[in-house]
């Protein structure tokens, strides 16, 4: 051991970062350069319905054409086979957007629009009918490719990213506050997210309550759920003096049990909330629908309210004090238990709201929808600095924008990779996060 490899000293760090970044970029470059064959049939076995088609030019099949299908519960790519065929399984009897990647067509060939009205003929909608499948074909011929202007595309993605970042922030702030006040890295936070959406599904779709009322009740139930989490599990564990790492593993068990309990009750399919998939609500403004705008507005209002609470109210200040230094806060007469209880109620409510907005964003309610964004939430929280509410907000917006913007360069089915890589790189250069403080040593 005495002559074993030396630890890299601090001088080597910049080089390391550079190497990792280089690796990342070469991976991205590889992705856009890699030729594609096979996988003309994607997700057929896992899904009940399918969208399929044949790509032909003057009757001859075209191989290697990239088709994307996006919509409720599915976002997948297929590449046409030697017969020009492709098929993608989808979970819903619903409308999906099918896009043909024109850059994979031979030189000088494009998707032609017969009516001349459609600016993007390479993208069309396909609705799965009673037969359980739908065919989506394109007219291909010589002609100009539809080039969506790059600026518009960037703005599209910017708004999507902002929308996603804001809803992520609702989720992340709760996670971060719980971590700050109790030290728990709560993996079961994901199930609080799904809980809000599932309650809304039950109330508005199964019980057919009016939407505003259903949302209100769902949020109240979410808050109650947050409270119950603490009262029934975490508080007793704190009392027992269970360590933070064991508690973290307990939260993993809870997450697993909770997630499959949801699946037990609502099944494996994705269901839609009221108005989630109506195309009539599109505003034509950078692809935003009324729901998107409402979602962003709600998120911003709630985030402002949370900020006001933390900065201006007595209880909020006490919360921050407990986050900063629980021992000191207790010594200065703050009722730490009460603060923690309120943090859990808040975390439950915010996660539930985040879940509802996430259900409209994806779109769809499914049993594992919370777990799908859990890692991104952690990424946001770590990015901002564990335990700081405002760090979580900034981290979320960055993650949201990054996830959506990265699809301009990398394949859509890889969009989460970028955010997770950023998480690792940030830990490398600034382990305490953007707003976090260094830990006390010794």
């Amino acid at each position, binding site marked *: 051991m005495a002559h074993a490899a030396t630890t890299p000293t601090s001088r080597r760090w910049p080089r390391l970062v550079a190497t990792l970044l280089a690796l990342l970029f070469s991976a991205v470059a590889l992705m856009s350069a890699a030729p594609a064959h096979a996988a003309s049939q994607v997700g057929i076995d896992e899904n009940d319905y399918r969208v399929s088609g044949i790509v032909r030019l003057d009757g001859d099949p075209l191989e290697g054409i990239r088709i994307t299908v996006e919509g409720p519960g599915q976002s997948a790519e297929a590449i046409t086979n030697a017969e020009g065929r492709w098929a993608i399984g989808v979970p819903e009897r619903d409308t999906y957007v099918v896009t043909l990647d024109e850059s994979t067509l031979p030189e000088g060939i494009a998707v032609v629009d017969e009516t001349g009205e459609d600016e993007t003929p390479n993208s069309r909608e396909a609705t799965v009918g009673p037969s359980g499948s739908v065919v989506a074909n394109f007219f291909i011929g010589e002609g100009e490719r539809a080039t969506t202007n790059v600026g518009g595309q960037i703005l599209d993605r910017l708004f999507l990213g902002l929308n996603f970042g804001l809803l992520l922030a609702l989720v992340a702030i709760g996670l971060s506050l719980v971590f700050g006040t109790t030290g728990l890295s709560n993996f079961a936070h994901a199930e609080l997210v799904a809980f809000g959406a599932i309650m809304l599904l039950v109330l508005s779709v199964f019980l057919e309550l009016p939407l505003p009322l259903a949302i209100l009740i769902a949020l109240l139930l979410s808050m109650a759920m947050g409270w119950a989490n603490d009262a029934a599990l975490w508080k007793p564990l704190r009392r027992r003096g269970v360590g933070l*790492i064991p508690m973290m593993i307990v939260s*993993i068990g809870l997450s697993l049990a909770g997630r499959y309990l949801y699946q037990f009750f609502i099944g494996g399919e994705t269901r839609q909330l009221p108005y989630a998939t109506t195309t009539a609500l599109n505003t034509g403004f950078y692809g935003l629908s009324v729901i998107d705008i409402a979602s962003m507005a709600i998120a911003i209002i709630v985030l402002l309210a949370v900020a006001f609470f933390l900065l201006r109210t007595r209880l909020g200040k006490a919360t921050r004090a407990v986050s900063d230094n629980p021992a000191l806060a207790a010594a200065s007469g703050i009722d730490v238990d009460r603060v923690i209880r309120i943090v859990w109620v808040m975390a439950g409510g915010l996660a539930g709201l985040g879940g509802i907005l996430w259900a409209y964003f994806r779109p769809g309610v499914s049993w594992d929808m919370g777990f799908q964004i859990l890692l991104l939430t952690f990424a946001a929280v770590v990015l901002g600095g564990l335990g700081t509410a405002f760090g979580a907000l900034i981290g979320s917006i960055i993650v949201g924008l990054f996830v959506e913007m990265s699809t301009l360069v990398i394949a859509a089915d890889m969009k989460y990779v970028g955010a997770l890589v950023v998480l690792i790189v940030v830990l490398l250069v600034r382990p305490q996060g953007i707003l976090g403080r260094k830990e006390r040593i010794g």
Partner: protein
Amino acid sequence: MIDWIQLLGNSAQQILSPVTAAYALAALGLAIHFGYTGLLNFGQAGFMALGAYGYGISTLTFGFPWWAALLVGVGVSIIFALILGVPTLRLRADYLAIVTIAAAEIARLFFTTNTFVQYTGSANGLQGYKGSFEEVNPIPPGRYGFGPFTYNEYDWWVRIFGWGLVIIAALITWRLMKSPWGRVIKGIREDEDAVRALGKNVYFYKMQALVLGGVFGSLAGMVFVLPRAIVPSNFQPTLTFFIYAILLLGGAATVLGPIVGAIVFWVALSFFSGFVARAVEVGWLPFMSTVQAGQLQFILVGIVIMLLVIFRPQGMFGNKKELAFVK
């Protein structure tokens, strides 16, 4: 009526099953990480995926013989461990947890994306890579064994190979943990600053532990896919959580724990889900569908993890005093 003999037979089959061997091997790797060194690796599924794909891709795309493919799988997991360890082994334990789970997901997304479909088969995965491993099978064709343990020559070969690896890995772990190296590792689990103050290169030891446990994980991945096909959706975080359940069941800082834990876990789980499924079929549980019966096992595993951590953190074999939890 429920066919009890068949139910018990199916459960008993899990004792020798290569899947059980794979979980035991992966849990042994996790015991080195978590139980002995205190590293919270939540990306064991990633190591397994790299082992499986490293093996599958080098066989199918590059036509490597089985042993070279195996070395590729191991090599890739070593590189993965180094990439993970460099940024995170200096940081707090919970950061490692988040980074490893994220890295495992990155690996899985890379294997699932259409971008590399010609190598990975994207969402459909890979099959047909058994060739040269099947050829070196010394067992002549035929069916051997008794009762529920009757298999053909390839099934036996996979079982012998898988459990052979488990035994070798267990012996290595056992020797290491009785050595001065193991003492340093356990010291790091207790308090790494104290060990650092005694002149040990803590970072380097943690890296060694991460690599070693990761190699066990990648071998587990290969054993896992040898009898079947490689499917990327098998390597989700839930896989890691199952391995944690096994580790906690057996005892995190023990050598026998992960192995017996894996056997008990799979026999019990198989019996439980088999029983519930048949009970539903014969109408004993009218409020449940067969699909729902299948989900019950996951709920059960989640609850078992919680109960073990709260009430019996040392597992079945762990020393009562040696709770084997990092602080």
